[in-house]
């Protein structure tokens, strides 16, 4: 004999409620997702409405000028490229080197876990603090002045923790069976790392490095602290020149837009260029990841 704890009609109404709640849940989460997309849409609309008509070849190839009609961002673009030229190798060498040490050499123990925790903590430190560090160490103590090299080293430090963690994850994803096969043939640790582990991990390492590089390109605060000149400066020709970068230029134009209205349009146009640059970088990262994705 079956015992019915609830009547059939009651179960029917409860069933309806459950299905309604189920539907509601779906729309609630959709709403949460839409919120972000709508905000992004508004943002993009605003920027394109303000800046798109100002975006032309002259804007990309002209030097900075106080005259809004003549002003261009060639200096800022060159500055950004020079900055990347310092940041990319420095953060790659230090980041991958640290990751290799921590993953392949360091004994798993207290000291290793202290280092690991500190690297994770460094990733959470506000960027302006790195600016103060860069100013103290590179600009003042080493007396480099506010040149590309000083800014690049500061930015490299800023994204170093992200690069380290990404590289560590990339190295950890390489199955131990591959390095065991190499050790089993009498290869040394370094031969194994150089010939087996690093090549297999390189696509993921590069993806992580490019994504952290795009963070460096968008950062403003550390460079403002270092003292990027707001004045008109000659185009940077080497890493020892004074420079400005896109986000800093956007910042100054926005500041001054209360006095000169057209500066707001210039800022918006520069933002479009910056976004395009970031999009290209992220796309490169995605392409590398998809092209070299391997199953072991």
């Amino acid at each position, binding site marked *: 004999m079956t015992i019915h704890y609830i009547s059939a009609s009651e179960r029917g109404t409860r069933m309806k409620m459950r299905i309604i709640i189920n539907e509601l849940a779906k729309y609630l989460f959709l709403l949460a997702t839409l919120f972000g997309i709508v905000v992004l849409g508004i943002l993009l609309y605003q920027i394109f409405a303000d800046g798109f008509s100002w975006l032309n070849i002259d804007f990309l190839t002209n030097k900075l000028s106080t005259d809004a009609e003549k002003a261009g961002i060639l200096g800022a673009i060159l500055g950004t490229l020079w900055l990347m030229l310092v940041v990319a190798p420095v953060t790659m060498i230090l980041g991958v080197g640290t990751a290799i040490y921590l993953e392949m050499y360091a004994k*798993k123990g207290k000291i290793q876990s202290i280092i690991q925790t500190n690297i994770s903590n460094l990733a959470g430190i506000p960027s302006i603090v790195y600016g103060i560090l860069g100013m103290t160490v590179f600009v003042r103590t080493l007396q480099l002045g506010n040149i590309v090299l000083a800014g690049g080293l500061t930015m490299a430090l800023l994204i170093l923790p992200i690069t380290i963690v990404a590289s560590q994850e990339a190295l950890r994803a390489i199955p131990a*069976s*591959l390095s*065991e096969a*190499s050790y*089993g*043939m*009498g290869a040394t640790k370094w*031969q194994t790392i150089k010939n087996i582990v690093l090549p297999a991990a390189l696509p993921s390492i590069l993806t992580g490095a490019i994504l952290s590089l795009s963070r460096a390109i968008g950062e403003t605060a550390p460079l403002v602290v270092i003292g990027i000149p707001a004045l008109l400066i000659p185009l940077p020709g080497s890493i020892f020149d004074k420079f400005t970068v896109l986000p800093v230029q956007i910042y100054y134009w926005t500041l001054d837009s209360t006095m000169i209205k057209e500066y707001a349009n210039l800022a918006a146009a520069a933002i479009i260029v910056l976004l395009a640059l970031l999009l290209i970088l992220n796309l490169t990262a995605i392409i590398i990841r998809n092209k070299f994705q*391997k199953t072991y």
Partner: protein
Amino acid sequence: MSTVTIERPKNKPQANVKVLKTVEVNKKAMFETQNFNLWYGEKQALKNIDISIHEKEVTAIIGPSGCGKSTYLKALNRMVELVPNVRMTGKVIYDNKSIFDPSVTVEQLRTQVGMVFQKPNPFPKSIYDNIAYGPKIHGIRNKMILDEIVETSLRNAYLWDEVKDRLHENAYRLSGGQQQRLCIARCLAIDPRVILMDEPTSALDPQSTLKVEELIRTLKEKYTIAIVTHNMQQAARISDRTAFFLNGEVVEFAETAHIFNNPSDKRTEGYVSGQFG
């Protein structure tokens, strides 16, 4: 593509037994383990192991899961030291010298004592580069010599005919059985004297298993082989001597025929007759 024909050993069963007997007198021990103990942290994995692995023979190591048979094999080429917190006491003599002797580096030891793993683990490189990897890390740069090593190794692993037209394809495109024979060929390319095999057929289908077994039988003419296996028929088919491990101890170590037909220990009898395992 031509089919591979693998020459079966022509020994009849009786002849096999005769071979075993001459083996006992003439062949020297390649590896000798004396009173060998091993701990993972606090847990003792191997207790007083006293067995030897004889030259140009196949020594099978059998036993239930977790009995320490893989650990023993990995101790022989010191791969076990990759595991943190491993401690060992006792002696492991290879070619009249302790493998822990400071004058012998692990790299030297592993060059002479190659290893084939449970799961085929080719490098994510071409077939050619997989084989050439070993010679290259030992300093061979000459392309002609490398070509020759690659061909000889693949031939000796009975893989040449199947892959000779696609040496520069990625090794992952081979079937599981081919990948494992590639791993054996890769091991042969460093010209070892001993080959340690850790359940080399457990991830393979029956046909590939058979091919690898045929290969092992021919390889023992030139190499000393120690093979860990879960498959008792396999041990009976291919090995000359068998060691039965249980809970980190060697219960019995004798000629294979003896272990399977007439074991001295009740536990060996129970295991080989399938009463536990």
